[in-house]
Every structure is written in structure tokens, then in C-alpha cells.
């Protein structure tokens, strides 16, 4: 098994997530892209756990999942509140604060 394929896949997923954050207009999709980035980190951690022969990476992946879940709770609450007051979740519409 060649571990570098997994690392490349993870880097690719991270990049796709990063581009999603920068290019997507809907706050929910931006947020999903962030979650994709976190999951690509999990893949990286598990792969390195195998290459370095330690269990730390797998344990860390669990921590990341828990933190990601907490972030979903807070994030969706904030996005919901702004969607209810503006009838839109587009990040282009939140433009009252500028300059």
C-alpha cells in the first residue's frame, strides 16, 4: 500500500473545500465546504497514524469529529437566525458592515 495516494487525496479534498469556501455564495454550502476541509484533515491524520506507527492520529480524528459536531451546532444556529431575518442565506446579501 502506498500511503502517499491517501495524502494526495486528502490534499485534493482540502483544496476543493477551500475553493468551495471562496467561491460558493450560499452560507450553508460555504459551511459544508469547511466540513469537507475538516474531513480531509481526518483522512490525513489516519494516514499518518499508519505511516508513523502510532495511534495518536486515530485518536485525534475522533477529537476532530467531536469539535466539528460542536461547530455545526453553533454554525447552523447562526446561519438560521440570519436566514430568518433576511429570507436569504447568500453571503453576498450580508453587506451592511463595510469599509
Amino acid at each position: 500500500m502506498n500511503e502517499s495516494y491517501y495524502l494526495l487525496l486528502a490534499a485534493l479534498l482540502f483544496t476543493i473545500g477551500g475553493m468551495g469556501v471562496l467561491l460558493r455564495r450560499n452560507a450553508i454550502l460555504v459551511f459544508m465546504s469547511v466540513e469537507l476541509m475538516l474531513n480531509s484533515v481526518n483522512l490525513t491524520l489516519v494516514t499518518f497514524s499508519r505511516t508513523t506507527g502510532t495511534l495518536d492520529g486515530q485518536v485525534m480524528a475522533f477529537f476532530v469529529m467531536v469539535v466539528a459536531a460542536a461547530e455545526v451546532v453553533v454554525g447552523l444556529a447562526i446561519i438560521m437566525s440570519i436566514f430568518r431575518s433576511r429570507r436569504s442565506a447568500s453571503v453576498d446579501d450580508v453587506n451592511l458592515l463595510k469599509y
Partner: protein
Amino acid sequence: MPTDIQSPEIAYGPILPLLIVFGAAVIGVLIEAFAPASKRRTLQIVVAALGLLGALAATISLAGTQELVFAEAIAVDGVSLFLWGTLAVLGLASIFLLSERSLDASGGAVVARASVLPGSREDVQLAEATEVQTEIYPLAMFSLGGMMLFPASNNLLLMFIALEVLSLPLYLMAGLARRRRLLSQEAAVKYFLLGAFASAFFLYGVALLYGYAGSVDLGDVFTATGLAQSNEALLFVGLAMLAVGLLFKVGAVPFQAWTPDVYQGAPTPVTAMMAATTKIAAFGALLRVLYVGFGRTEWDWRPMMWGIAILTMVIGALLAVTQTDVKRMLAYSSVAHTGFILVGVIALSRDGLSGTLFYLLAYGFTTLASFAVVTLVRDSSGEATHLAQWAGLGRKSPLVAGTFAFFLFALAGIPLTSGFMAKYAVFKAGVDEGLTALVVIGLLASAVTAFFYARVVVLMFFSEPAPDGPTVSVPSGYTAGAIALGLAVTVVLGVLPQPVLDLAERASQFVY
């Protein structure tokens, strides 16, 4: 592959300040669940204040400790203890600001029910009602606990978790303003999306450094940087990603975009807390990562940090000049100050470390108190933050305008204020380490910042007040106490800085 995981031995004594703050936060949640609504506010303030005072007392009793606890994940050393003490006192002042009720007829800067639609009939009724919401106290305490853990983490995974513990409550708190709720919610969305994006970078950096060193312990990372056969690409990319996450939190250019929007939109007491404490916690973590983990690879990260420090100082100072809103102006000034503090970080010497610690303490108190003054200047729709509305304030209320002018002088770095001593300490450390070019740019940027601070002072004292201008509300003891504390620290550190400089000097030692 090893299969047995040893359970760590836990030394509860050295982490007592953390346990007290998190304990107070958990008690705050229980109060929300079980105490009658009429008693909640008093109980929450008492529990939060006692928790922070207890944390301060525990921190003082730990003075001189140098040890790694919790399976070497938490470093209790001079730097941690210095920052814990500072954060506990500033946290107490923030809790006081959040407790203020006599400025607004309806009581408090925090919305009574965050779920009510802005602009709806219920919202209009609530804005005038005296109902208050007290969930903000446990949120603030969890955030402060995370801030105390953040600079003390000797393990990158723990540092990530501390980062989230400090950030998640802050995202919510930014969206809880009682007035101008659309702005407040917008600030929360922007802060959350950008913050989550930055923490994903931080985490990817942690994963790559794990691949590089086989461990996320900062000591092991340091050991790995001395070995020749390691994969350098993982090191460089990992460190860069880690730095993105940390520089976002301190608000350095080019990761500063959230700062003005969030500082302006969040309720002003929350802005005061965020401006003072988040910066301290994030700089503490940045110092630990760079000094403990990457002290040997300074040639790899110093040029990058040079560029970021220059950009931060110059762009922060120049953009502050164009601002027309007091809160936004203070936000850009905080960006410029981030650049000045970075000079002390880049110096990578003991003087640089102690200068940075002193700067963080001095800046924290001054900026918290200046945002507290902003909460006092009000018109019928709430706080009057447009600079034009501040014209002639010195004629209406010489005391408040004079206090604000003094804080602006301190932020500009005029002698006999804490800001001067702080800037002197970091710039001197920079010159000693051969960063003369950086210090010269820093001095020029300081001159630009002095210009826009002076412009506000001139506006307050030498222009005619508008006929329908804002009035200065009389605060209760909470806000008055926080401002008096900030004023006292700013004066004392400017006139008699030596005891605190000595304390920072003795504290500037990392354990690893």
C-alpha cells in the same frame, strides 16, 4: 504497532485556575436550568466574578511553577501564569461591562431573546422591555476558560480544542446585540464562517506536523527539527498552515478582514472583551508555538513573519485614518497594534518575550476601557458610534471625553502612558536583535496612528457640538469600575512600570 494506551497521571494543583473557570462556567449552565428567572442575573454575576477571582488567587499561589502536566499537554510556566492572571482580571472587567444595565432604558447591551425576528412587533416590544438574558455569562466564562487553556497548550491537538472552546461562544456572543440586530447577526455570520475556515487551516497544519514529527507535542516537534532525515516539505507547509490559524486569531494582515466588521457589529461590551482577551490568548499561543516548537527553524519562518508584521502595521494604520465609525477605527487600530506586538514576537529573545507580555497587558486594559467609554455616548437609538456625532463631546462632558482622550494617547504611545512603555519595550527588543528596519517602519506607522488618534481628540475638544448630538449616560458602578481599572493600569504602567516590567521579565520563561 503499540496497542496499550497508558492513562495519564493528572496533577490537579497546577491547572487549578483552569478548573475554577470551567467549573464556574458549568455552574452557570446549571443556574440557567434550575434557578428561578428573577434570581438568575445576580447569581450569574456572583458565580462568574467569584470564579475569576478564584482563578486569579490560584494563579498567584502558583507563582514560580515550571512544569508540564496532563501527560505533558499543558505547560504551567511563567508565560502561562502571567497570561492567566491578566486574562482573569480582564475577564472580570468584561463581566462587569456585560452586567451594565443603567445605560439603556431597557437594560443591558444583550438581546433578551435571540430567536425573535429583528424588526418584528415582538422585537420592538422586547427592545423596550426590561427582560434580560443571562446565558451570556456562562458563554463568556467558557470562552475565557478556552483563552486560558490556549496559550498554555504544549500539545497542538489540545491547542486546537482550546481554540474552538474560546471561539465557539464568541461567535454566538457577537450576534447577541439588543439594538441594531441585523448588524450584530451579520457580524456573527462573518466571524463564524471566516473563523471556521481559519481553524480548518490550523488543523491541517497540525495534521501535517504530526506526519512530520510523529507527534503533536511541541517538544517532539522541536526534537524532530534537529534531525536531518525528516521531510522538510511537511514541516514548511504544516507551519505555514498553523500560522494562518494563529494569525487569523490575532488579526494580522492579510487575515484581518473580519476584525472591523465583527468589532463594529458585536455588542460593545462583547467587543471590549474580544479586543482585549482574544488578542492576549492568541499571541500567547503564537509565542509558545514559535519559541518552543520552532525555535530552531527561525530562519524558515522569520522572513514570512517580517512581511506580515510590516503589512499589518502599515495597512492597519493607513486604513484606520479613513474610518468614520469609532468602533471601526478602534478595530483598525487593534490591527496596527498587532503589527507592533509582532515585532516583539519576531525578536525571538527573552527581552522580546517579556516586552510582548508587557505590551499585551498594557494594551488589553487600555483597549477594554476605551470600548467601555464608547458604550457611554448614546442617543435615542442606542450607542452613537459615528465620529461626527462625537464632535464637541469635550464641552458636554469633559470627564468622559478627557478619559477617552487619555486612552487614545496611550494607544498612540505618548510618554507617561502604558502605551509608551509597551512600545519602547518591544521596539528595544527588536533593535537589540537586529530588526532595525522593522522598528523604523513600526515608528513610522506609530506616527500615522498618532495622527488619527489626535484627530479624534481635536474633534472632541475643538469643534462645536451638534444641536441634536448624543448625550453621555451616567453608568452604574459596573462600567465605571471597569473604566477606572483601565485608567489606573494605564497610568500606573506609564509612570511606574518597573514592578510589572520585572514581573514580565521573570515570567518570560517557557518550560519544555
